[in-house]
């Protein structure tokens, strides 16, 4: 670094310290006048920084905001902005670490469903602008030569995510979205599928245990034969083929599947499961 950029670097460090931590060392290098002194001028940037980030949290997490109410929302905003400076070029991603922050915060961490509510809203946003891939149709399945069915694998649409949770965060989200009183938080095992439909709208629906296992089965690169065995273990040999076919047709109709392949290509799927 040159001597000159050393001065620039120092000023930039001082400015960032003023924005992130309220440090006022930079004011000695800011010219004031009769209208505004150096501190007043600096405070325009300090206020702008907070307002901008606050607006992002508000826009990205409207249901979480409604659920918390004004006071708790401000508490969350203050704590998050102080603890988590943006490391992203786009504000679109600023709240990506919000669920983790809520989980480890000494206050909000007492209420794990709040972090889950945030995680669910992040999941909806991730599906919203996931890559555009074509979706396979039921006809694609019907046209597959019978000899390829046993080895058939699936490539899910990149917007599809599994949201597994141990509480009723999604039910709380749904109630608030519908302007209804949210249920009390409770522990329950739940699994939801989030995806973007063919009209580019984000949707979600609950996944039954067999459906969850089948999704995992195909995510792991297993083929139709393995999926059929898994289904048979659940519903019996006789009903297995019809059940599995019904599941596949539903997935195809919903636009969850981008590609049917018997070539052993690894499916691509972002999993938003709780670690």
């Amino acid at each position, binding site marked *: 670094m040159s001597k000159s*950029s050393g001065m*620039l670097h120092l000023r930039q460090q001082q400015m960032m310290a003023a924005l992130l931590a309220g440090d006022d060392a930079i004011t000695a290098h800011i010219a004031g006048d009769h209208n505004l002194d150096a501190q007043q001028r600096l405070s*325009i*940037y300090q206020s702008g920084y907070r307002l901008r980030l606050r607006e992002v949290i508000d826009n990205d997490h409207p249901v979480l905001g409604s659920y918390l109410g004004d006071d708790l929302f401000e508490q969350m905003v203050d704590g998050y902005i102080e603890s988590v400076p943006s490391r992203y070029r786009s504000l679109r991603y600023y709240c990506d670490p919000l669920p983790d922050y809520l989980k480890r915060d000494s206050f909000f961490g007492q209420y794990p469903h709040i972090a889950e509510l945030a995680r669910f809203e992040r999941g909806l946003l991730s599906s919203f602008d996931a890559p555009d891939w074509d979706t396979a149709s039921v006809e694609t399945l019907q046209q597959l030569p019978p000899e390829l069915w046993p080895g058939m694998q699936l490539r899910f649409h990149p917007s599809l995510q599994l949201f597994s949770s141990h509480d009723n965060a999604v039910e709380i989200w749904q109630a608030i979205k519908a302007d209804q009183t949210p249920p009390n938080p409770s522990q329950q095992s739940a699994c939801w599928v989030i995806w973007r439909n063919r009209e580019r709208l984000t949707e979600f629906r609950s996944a039954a245990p067999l459906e969850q296992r089948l999704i995992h089965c195909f995510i792991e690169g297993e083929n139709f034969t393995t999926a059929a065995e898994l289904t048979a273990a659940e519903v019996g040999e006789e009903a297995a083929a019809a059940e599995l076919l019904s599941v596949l047709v539903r997935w195809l109709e919903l636009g969850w599947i981008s590609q049917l392949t018997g070539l052993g290509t690894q499916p691509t799927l972002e999993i938003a499961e709780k670690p």
Partner: protein
Amino acid sequence: MNDHFLGFGLGLRTQHFNDVLESRPDVDWFEIISENFMVAGGKPKYYLHAIREQYPLVMHGVSMSIGSTEPLDKDYLQRLKLLANEVQPQWISDHLCWTGLEGVNSHDLLPMPYTEEAIDHIAGRIMQVQETLGRQLLLENVSSYISYTESVMSEWEFYSEVVERADCLMLLDINNIYVSSRNHNFDAQTYLNSINPERVRQFHLAGHSDYGTHVIDTHDHDICDPVWALYRKALQRFGAVSTMIERDDNIPPLNQLLDELQIARDIAAEVLPCPHAGKPAAQLEIR
């Protein structure tokens, strides 16, 4: 007439995506915020492509951080280049400022000290960016609320020198000149008079919030009369320059922005001898 005159444009905002496609408004071109479309897919990309089929686009970035003392973000530049390959914009712009340090982004357009050292620093980085993108970059003057005691020249001298040394182009934000002239008590006309017309490729117009002692560049109001007056003077000095309105908050219906854009067209029609001023870009020869 300026060979690169696109006519009169608007900032493309999500609130207007549907209206733009359905009503195909009388806008000559749109400016997109580059970072908003650095996503993989979904609605943003769908509308981007659909609107690109019908309108010329330019790309305007907010996070290149050309003045920062941290290394240029090569990953960002590559993503910008990929987006440019996809969009085929008429040009790419960003701001004469810095936005963050050591991996932390302030998401603000922070001003530089106006020093020889800062000119050297920025000009070298602009040349690197232009090399990567394979084209000249437009740099916009930002609104500012502070000036550094180390500054040894005016903003317009600094801006001009950076642009000449880096051989880049100017996106002159008329509202920002007004805002900074109020905040730093300088004469906006002097600013305009010092700018080399050969370097000016685009104008921005926008609204701001006036607090009496200072003015903040909020982009949430209509354009005020003093800014329109400065725009008139800018046209007199620079001729037909592609002009667009930025509105980023308190965003009104598209029709309201079209009415505001018509004011820009009317002023241009009064000021400019060029018979094409105020005509849609499709009727012009656009490079």
